[in-house]
């Protein structure tokens, strides 16, 4: 007979289905996260659900060992910059290496590749995000009350306000901006990698 769980299995069951019935279960996520045994129950319930849907989803190796390996790698991941709401935009100048042939954006946590999001007004940087030879000059802008078409979006730099209309115009600019020697392939591809957000 197992020791008593810190988290009742009924609550784990509710969490699996996204149901929260009683006040006790409201704290279940916290408890679940600190209780390895409860996480095993979470895992078992999900295996059951998956296998009911398709026998192909039965685990052929240890899922928990997979997670352990993953957690060791995640422990090496850099801590994401904390977003600070700050209306003052710092202007940072640094040393540009004249012969820099490899340019690294060190504040980006990895090469997942993500959508470029336009932002209006607020550039949020924290000093911890800027390191080493990748120093960036940031232009300060005046912040005014946000118009309705601004949408908050998450980027590597933190929360940025994104103006959809401005995105549309930028896309339109890129669409017709091929009048340059440097635009092909760099420019066209650059445009192509950015496109999509405004459509």
């Amino acid at each position, binding site marked *: 007979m197992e020791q008593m769980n810190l988290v009742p299995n009924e609550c784990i069951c509710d969490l699996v289905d996204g149901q929260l019935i009683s006040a006790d279960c409201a704290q279940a996520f916290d408890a679940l996260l600190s209780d390895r045994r409860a996480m095993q129950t979470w895992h078992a319930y999900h295996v059951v659900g998956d296998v009911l849907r398709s026998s192909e989803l039965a685990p052929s190796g240890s899922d928990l060992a997979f997670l352990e390996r993953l957690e060791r790698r995640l422990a090496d991941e850099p801590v994401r910059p904390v977003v600070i709401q700050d209306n003052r935009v710092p202007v940072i100048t640094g040393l540009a290496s004249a012969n820099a042939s490899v340019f690294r954006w060190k504040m980006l946590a990895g*090469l997942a590749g993500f959508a470029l999001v*336009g932002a209006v007004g607020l550039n949020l940087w924290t000093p911890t995000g800027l390191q080493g030879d990748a120093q960036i000059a940031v232009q300060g802008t005046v912040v005014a009350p946000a118009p309705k078409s601004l949408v908050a979006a998450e980027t590597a730099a933190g929360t940025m306000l994104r103006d959809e209309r401005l995105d549309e115009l930028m896309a339109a600019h890129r669409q*017709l*901006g*091929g009048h340059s020697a440097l635009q*092909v392939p760099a420019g066209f591809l650059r445009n192509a990698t950015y496109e999509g957000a405004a459509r």
Partner: protein
Amino acid sequence: MLLVVCGVTAQGSAMAQPVVNETPLNAWLLRVHQAARQSVYTGTFVVSSSAGMASARIWHVCDGAQQIERVESLSGIPRAIFRHNDQVVTFFPQSKIAVAEVRESLGLFPDLLKSSDSSIGDFYQLKALGNERIAGFESEVFWLQPKDMMRFGYRVWSEKKTGLIIQLQTLDLKGKVLEQSAFSELQLGAVVNVAKLTRSGNTDGYRVVRPDLQKTTADAQGWTLQKPVDGFKPMGCYQRPPIAPQQGGQGSAQNTMQWVFSDGVATVSLFVEAFDGRRHTREGSADMGGATHTLMRRLDNWWVTAVGEVPLATLSAFALALERKK
């Protein structure tokens, strides 16, 4: 499987010279421009700036005068762009929408060089910086240096044999990198299944949308530049239809004019639409990272948005020079 090989142009072979400090600029620009059009290649392309990173896979083939290109996004909204010469279709598989358009700006560059008042050399100079191996290719590194403060500089890694640009950095007025576009991996002269590539441009199963872009002239629209901005020539003027509001955005009730300028290297678009007090509330610039800057300004009953890969001062010059014809 077809092997498609495009001949190296006469320009290309003429460029096989020892590195010198000053290279004839126009010839160099033409060479790098042609290389992209006439080489066969495939690779992964990454654009990075302070605002983020975006990447795509690209396949490019050509057959004499015809070019076929496919760009598949590896980041952001899933999309694929298929191009056959100047016909471009952008596929959005999640919504099953395909946007078909003609981009006549592609290929205009050689005409720009041929025109008698071409003066790119008045505004840029080329400096050779040496050789470097990048993405597995020997490349020559150049600095395309602006001669004034109205445009950005560029560091260019150009593949030795063909001139294809493998990496491009846009540099601000202090020489700091604003944006970098580069092949993270590249196969030149790749063996590409052209038939399959061509088939990937098929729009079956997609709802095809053709944006309505009318070619016009600034003059016909009633606009002029009271004073030209150094080095920039008008490239074309278009009228864009009203945009339906989407997802919380407000769209635009009227046509928007887009007036495009270029100095041969950088491009600026001037967007003009009717002023709308509810939407047009912030004048000034917006810094989104990267090389593209924007500037918004009210001009009587109009709202002007200037967009371009140029310093803010240049956008200001455009916005201030724009005036309604008398």
